[in-house]
């Protein structure tokens, strides 16, 4: 502590170390939060359902997605990334996950939402397995923190089925 530079260096190092500890504690405090999310999806209509020239099935649908993810926000949450995926099995792949829509929720106020939309991304199969296919619509989310660990989870909604014939 014998000189200006020595004291300044010591203070800066100690201050930054304590800051790191504070951030770790803030991240740990996220574990104390028990979220209770809910969501619901309706397939309003199948717009079209065709087999592409390359042999892959493709379907376009209009969806009603509503969810309440407010309980997931803590003081250490920067944003929540949410996406809706269609999940089904085929002989070739035991699990197919196709992302249909995604969004970023920047704050708690925006976390209770209802959206009426066609699928943002193409629902295309690897092959021609979609006729009459039963599938789940799963809402996935990633809670992105300001500092520390990211939490990810999902809600699986079952009971959806594609038409038997192309339209």
């Amino acid at each position, binding site marked *: 502590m*014998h000189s*200006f530079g020595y*004291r300044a260096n*010591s203070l800066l190092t100690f*201050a930054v170390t304590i800051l790191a500890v504070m951030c770790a504690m*803030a991240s740990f405090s996220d574990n104390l939060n028990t979220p209770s999310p809910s969501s619901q999806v309706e397939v309003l209509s199948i717009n079209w359902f065709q087999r592409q020239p390359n042999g892959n099935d493709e379907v376009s649908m209009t969806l009603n997605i509503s969810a309440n993810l407010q309980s997931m926000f803590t003081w250490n949450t920067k944003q929540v990334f949410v996406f809706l995926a269609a999940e089904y099995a085929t002989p070739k792949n035991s699990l197919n996950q196709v992302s249909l829509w995604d969004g970023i929720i920047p704050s708690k106020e925006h976390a209770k939402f209802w959206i009426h939309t066609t699928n943002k991304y193409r629902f295309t199969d690897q092959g021609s397995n979609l006729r009459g296919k039963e599938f789940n619509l799963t809402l996935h989310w990633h809670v992105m923190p300001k500092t520390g660990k990211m939490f990810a989870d999902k809600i699986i909604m079952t009971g959806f089925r594609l038409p038997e014939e192309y339209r």
Partner: protein
Amino acid sequence: MSEENFLREKENTIMDWQGQKLAEQLMQTLLLAFAVVAFVAGYSLGSFQMMLLIYAGGVALTTLITVPNWPFFNRHPLKWLDSSEVDRHPKPQPVKSKKKPTKQK
């Protein structure tokens, strides 16, 4: 003679030993205290930004208190030997003796 001048100049920029200890203790205590206050305030208000603001303020305040060489850090100054005293006492001469080899049993 240049040695004494150098030391005299340095006296204005360095702290005495008690001051250094005080500076270190103050620095650590203040930073920890501000960190605790900042975390508790941020957590209870639900505002991460508030925590960072309080802590940043605390770091700035601590820097202001402990880094510059304030007078209260120099209340126990060291008394260096006066140059006139040095001249009165001759420097001890190194003793010239032959090195005896140590016997090993």
